[in-house]
Each structure stands twice: as C-alpha cells, then as structure tokens.
C-alpha cells in the first residue's frame, strides 16, 4: 500500500523531467527566475530588509501586495468547485482538479511571500510556541492558509491517486472535504480582509467593503488565470478541455468583475463625496497628494485594463478564444495592480502622523517577487504535467509511464528524445 504510493510519487517525479522542447524551455526559464529570486532573497537575508524599498512609513510593500493577490487566486478555485459539486455540472468535474492544483501552487506562493516579508525568518518557530490566537488576525491567516492548502492537497491528491489506481473515488473520502473547502475558500478571503480592515489607525483599510472587494476581484482574476491555463493545456497536450469550461469560467469572470466595479464605485463615492480627512489615502492613490503621485499611473492602468476586459467579456467577441484570452490577461494584470499597489500601499500614505513618503520596490524586491512567482508556476506546471497522463489513463499503477512508442497518437520517440536533449 505505502510501497504502491511511493512508486506513484516516484513515477510522478520521473515524469516531471520528461516533456517536449517547449516544456523544457518553460521549465528552464522558470528555474532560472526562481534561482534569481533565491539569490536576491539570500542577499536580503544577509543584509536585512534594508535591501527593499520599504521604510518605517510604508512598512509593507510588494511582498504583502502579492500575498494579497495570490491568496485571492487560491480562493477562486472554489468558483469552479461550486458549479461542479453544488450544481452537479459533471462535464467539468476533471477541471476542478486543475483549479485545486492552481490553489495548491498559489497558496505555496502566498506562504512564501509572508516568509520573505519577515525580518527574522530564523524565529519562525516562535509562531508555534506563542501563538496569539484568536486575537491576532495573522494567526487566523496562518490557520486559514495552511488549512486550505491541506484541504486542496487532500482532495486533488485523493482524486488523482484514485485515477492512478483505476478506482472509482469513494465519495465519503472527498465530498465532505470539497464542501468544507468551498466555505474555507471564502473564509481565506475574509481573514485576509480582516487583516487590514480591523486597523483603526489606517482609515483607508478601515472599511467594511474590503472583504467583498477582495472576493469579487479574486473571483475575476482567479478564473481568468484558469482560462489561460486551460487554454495552454488544451493546445499543448492531448487532454480534451470541454468548450463549456471556458464559457462557464467566462460567465464567472464577467459577474465577478462587474461586482468588483460596483463595490469600487461604492467605496469611491463614500470616500470622495464625504470628503473628510479620511480621503487622503484615496486621493493620493487616484489623484496624487501634495504633488506626489507615485501610484496614480498604476491605478488608472489597472482600472482601464479591468474596464476594457469587462467590456470585451460582455460582447459576443469574447466567444472567440483570442478575445477571451486577451480580456483575461488584461484583468489578471489589472487585479494584480489593484490589489497590490492599490490596496496595500496607499494605506501607508500619508503616514498616521501626516507625512507623505512614497514607496517604490527595489530591483532586489522585484527579483524575490519574480522568483516566488516563477517557483509557484513551476510547482503548478509539474502538478499539471503529472496529472494529465493520470487522468487520461496513460499513467496508472499497472501501466508505468510509457515511452511514446506505444501510443497511437504520439509521434516517434526519436523526435521527443531529441527534443529533450
């Protein structure tokens, strides 16, 4: 039993080193960027957080911004789980696994972004020794992220292994976890929002609409990433992705992005019509304050990308794959900016004592960020790469991964052997 499982893991491990030239190139590029990130992090570890652009004024920056974004991506797996398990849309059932694999990869990224933001990562174990639960929202976050990671690992791990053993999965072993994971996904967003909106000293965050905004923008950007990932899977592997998957996801993105705009408008009205002293951060973000306007170009770029993407999705043009992918790519970038530069940084500007100190990430910070992102995509690629042959029955307990020779729809093995060299 355990032996069979270890064999499964070993076969998956071996399989992750096998692929087309494109696969090797992609993995090579991701590895290089990951290592650049590791190198940059080592510098930060030795010299301190001074190598970042953060200051006592803007004490959270690019890392926490990306953390906010990727937690949202992880939660959005639920958006595919709900149609399948709650509305019984069986056609998409396999695709849920890809959504959950994406969740696994993005939670790993989120956790890494928190770790690189710590000034004393060597004291991480203090978290286990004096855990300020339930008072500190950060402890809730630790539980919510690790719990969500375990849930997703269990669900997709179980389903994939069942397919590998050529067994029908036992409902009892995964359906309850799926239901918990759906609720858990929302709670990760809630906890993430509570991290910010419970701080009375930061009026920009001290808003009840932060949680719904996080959910809405995440459920727009997450399924957008899935659309791109499914497109790549559909075109570069022989795995058949039903067209309906794209249409379902498109509907989800459309509604979520519309809701996101609705909530943004509510927020903007409250801030600017009231025009109290609390508007300072929002003014800095959207218009600049006292001649300082470091975020203005970012936020208008983000809102333009989101708006254009949304308009495309509401036109019939989005039924064509090209337009759909363009709209999704625009929204991913738009939400990434809106959640990062738009949600985290302006809360620190002006400072609680009224100083305006701007923030710009350093090269080192960008490298660490890119490294974590690349590592996350590396994990996701490997997970997808080993899952596809399992789901399509080409890799199973009684069928070790097979050189392409025996496969009727594969070209000769010499070609792929050369590609691998």
């Amino acid at each position, binding site marked *: 039993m355990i032996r069979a499982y270890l064999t499964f893991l070993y076969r998956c491990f071996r399989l992750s080193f*096998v*692929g087309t030239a494109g696969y090797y190139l992609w993995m090579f590029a991701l*590895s*290089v960027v990951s*290592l*650049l990130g*590791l*190198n940059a992090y*080592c*510098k930060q*570890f030795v*010299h*301190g*957080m*001074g190598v970042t652009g953060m200051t*006592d*004024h803007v*004490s*959270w920056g690019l890392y926490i911004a990306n953390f906010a974004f990727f937690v949202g991506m992880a939660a959005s797996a639920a958006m595919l789980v709900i149609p399948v398990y709650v509305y019984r849309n069986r056609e998409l059932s396999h695709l849920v696994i890809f959504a959950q694999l994406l969740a696994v990869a993005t939670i790993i990224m989120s956790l890494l972004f928190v770790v690189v*933001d*710590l*000034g*004393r*990562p*060597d*004291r*991480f174990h*203090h*978290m286990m*020794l*004096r855990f300020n639960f339930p*008072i*500190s*929202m*950060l402890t809730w976050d630790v539980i919510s992220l690790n719990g969500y990671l375990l849930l997703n690992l269990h669900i997709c791990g179980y389903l994939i292994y069942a397919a590998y053993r050529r067994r029908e999965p036992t409902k009892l072993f995964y359906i309850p976890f799926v239901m918990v994971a759906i609720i858990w996904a929302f709670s990760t967003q809630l906890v993430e929002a509570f991290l910010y909106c419970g*701080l*009375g*000293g*930061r009026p920009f965050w001290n808003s009840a609409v932060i949680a719904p905004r996080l959910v809405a923008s995440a459920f727009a950007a997450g399924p957008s990433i899935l659309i791109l990932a499914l497109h790549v899977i559909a*075109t*570069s*592997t022989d795995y058949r992705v039903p067209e309906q998957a794209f249409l379902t996801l498109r509907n989800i993105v459309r509604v979520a992005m519309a809701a996101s705009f609705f909530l943004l408008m509510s927020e903007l009205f409250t801030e600017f019509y009231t025009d109290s*002293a609390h508007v300072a951060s929002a003014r800095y973000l959207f218009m600049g304050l006292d001649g300082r306007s470091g975020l203005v170009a970012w936020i208008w770029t983000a809102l333009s990308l989101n708006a254009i993407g949304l308009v495309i999705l509401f036109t019939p043009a989005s039924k064509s794959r090209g337009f759909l992918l363009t709209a999704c790519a625009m929204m991913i970038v738009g939400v990434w900016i809106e959640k990062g530069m738009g949600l985290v940084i302006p809360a620190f500007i*002006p400072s*609680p*004592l*009224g*100083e305006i100190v701007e923030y710009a990430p350093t090269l080192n910070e960008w490298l660490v960020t890119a490294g974590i992102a690349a590592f996350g995509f590396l994990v996701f690629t490997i997970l997808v790469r080993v899952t596809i*042959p399992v789901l399509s029955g080409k890799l199973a307990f009684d069928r070790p991964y*097979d*050189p*392409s020779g025996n*496969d009727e*729809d*594969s*070209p000769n*093995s010499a070609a792929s*052997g050369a*590609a*691998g060299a």
Partner: protein
Amino acid sequence: MNIRIHEGGSAGAEVTRRSFLRTGTAVAGGMAALAAALSPLKDLNPAEEFSIEKFIQKHYKEMTPDDMKGALDRIAREVEHRYKVRPEVRDMRPKAGVEFVYALNLSRCIGCRKCVYACVEENNQSRAPEIQYIRVIEMPRGTLDLEKGNHHYERPTVPDADHFYMPVQCHQCANPPCVKVCPVEATWQDDDGITVIDYDWCIGCRYCEAACPYWARRFNFVKPEIPEADINKDMGYLSNRPRPKGVVEKCHFCLHRTREGRLPACLEACPTGARKFGNVLDPKSEVSQILKTKRVFVLKEEVGTLPRFFYYFDERYPRSLDPEAKQVALSLGYTPGAGGWTPPAGDPARAEVSR
C-alpha cells in the same frame, strides 16, 4: 501538440553513455546554479547572528530567574564583544500600584528637539540609519490636523511665533492595537501601563507598525550602528539594550530608569519643563494634578486606543467649569446659578463675583 511521455534513455535496463552524460551535465549544471544562487550567504557571520542559546531562549514570560540570568549574561557578552564596553544589563519589572502617564504642555514646548536626541543617546538607538522614537511636528496655528504639520522644519531659532510644536512618541495605550495584532505575543502591555517588546522574540512581521495610529514603532531594516563611545551601559532587557536587525522597537517610557524611580531621559532634557511624567494612581503626583485641572486632550481619541500620553495647554478651565474650584466654592457655601456663582449672603466677595 500531444503529450510525449518519454523516459529519456532509461527505458528498460538500457542506460546509454549519452543519456548518462546528459543527465550528469544537467544535474551538475543545476547544482552549480543553486550554489551560485546561495552564494550571498557567505557574507553571513553565523557566530554573531545565530546561536543555540538564542534559538532555544524562551519567551520573556516563560523564563525562570535562571533563564533570565543566562540571557542577561549573554547580552552583556555580546555587547562587550561588539562595542568593547561591559554593560550592566538588568531585567526591570513593573511595581505594584504604579501606572505611568505622560503629560506634555503644548504651551511650553518650543520645538528644540532636545528630547529627541536625549532619547537617542539614552536608548542606544541606531545612529546609521537614524532611528528616533520622538517626532516633533511643527503645527500651524488654528489646526490639529497632523497632515498640515511639518516634520522636517529647520530654523536657526525656535520657537517660531506662527507655529506650535507637538512631540509625538509611543502613547502607551491602554487599548493598544499593536499588542492585539502581534502573532507571537512579542509585545504586550505590562502592569504599569508600559507596552514592551521582547526583541529576542519579535519575528519582524511589522504588523504592529501597520496597526499603530501614532507611528510610534520603528523597524531595524538593517543592523543598527552605534559608535562604541556612545553606548549607554545602563541597559534593560525590555528597553534600551542594543537591538538586532529585523525587529521592531519603540519608546518604553525609559523603563530601566522609571521603574526605579528616575525620570525619562526626554523629560530631563527638556529645557522648558513642558514634559511631565508620573504615577497616575498617586493622587498627589504632578500628572494626577494636571489631569484634574488642565484642559487635557489625547491624540486621535476617535480610534479608541486610550493613550496614556496627554497633551494640554497651560490655561485652566473657565472657573465655572473647574471641578476643583467648584468643590471649593460649594464648600464655602456658594450656590451655582445661570449667571454664575452666588456667594453666601454677607460675603464680601459677593459684589466681586456678580460683576
């Protein structure tokens, strides 16, 4: 394109020389790249940065007296090693029946920043980069909106007639948001009202810095630099011992001084007597008198942090509202009325007051 599952060369028992070389080159290349990525770690001084002793040190509240003795010895050793002076490091505990508050007279403060520099010297704060716990804001008359203040005023002489000066430091809140958010309980409020930080426990997440409405906390983004000659050898575990990089620090009301009856360094440095400090539980203390008799306010009262740092102006209450004066008047038989206080009949002050 199709998936091509190809077992590069190792299919069956056949391992060709070519595939072996190829795999070997790939593994060697990967290892070299990994080593290159990790190379900045060679600048690390593990002996100075890490030790088993520090790694297994318990949380402040869990330390036995022996544990604490060991920790204080270690700190003294480290300071001696780095700064060539033997410090006296103590663990000062709060005293029963004491709750410290600070009161700052805005009518008297002239904005000279002597408190800022006295604090830096007393508390072994980093000189490069500069870390300061006190921020003096030059405020235009007619507003308390901090965004209208100037943090970086440079004048040949102070005070400027058109401004008043507002020093801000940790307010030692009774409802401190920084303590709430700390995930590892590295910061807490002691019984005498001082919020302290265990610098050996802080993980450097800076959540407290984000939570503080008074911008009181500072983070050691790099290793703090203090000239050997400037080290203050009188050190407290929870206060002014040198901090490592990557942890948060802030004003602690000079607890290594105040917990043994001395006054904070900022107060002693103040040339105008604008700073008052004491035990609010002692009704005879100066701060108790100030809270009773002056027009006192706290900064950002609306955020609900209940600061123990009060600002006031010299002027007393209008006599009709002065609670002390009211007690005196009532005891003398005066009666309150719409037009002011009426003295008892036959009192020579009657004509005076009614005018």
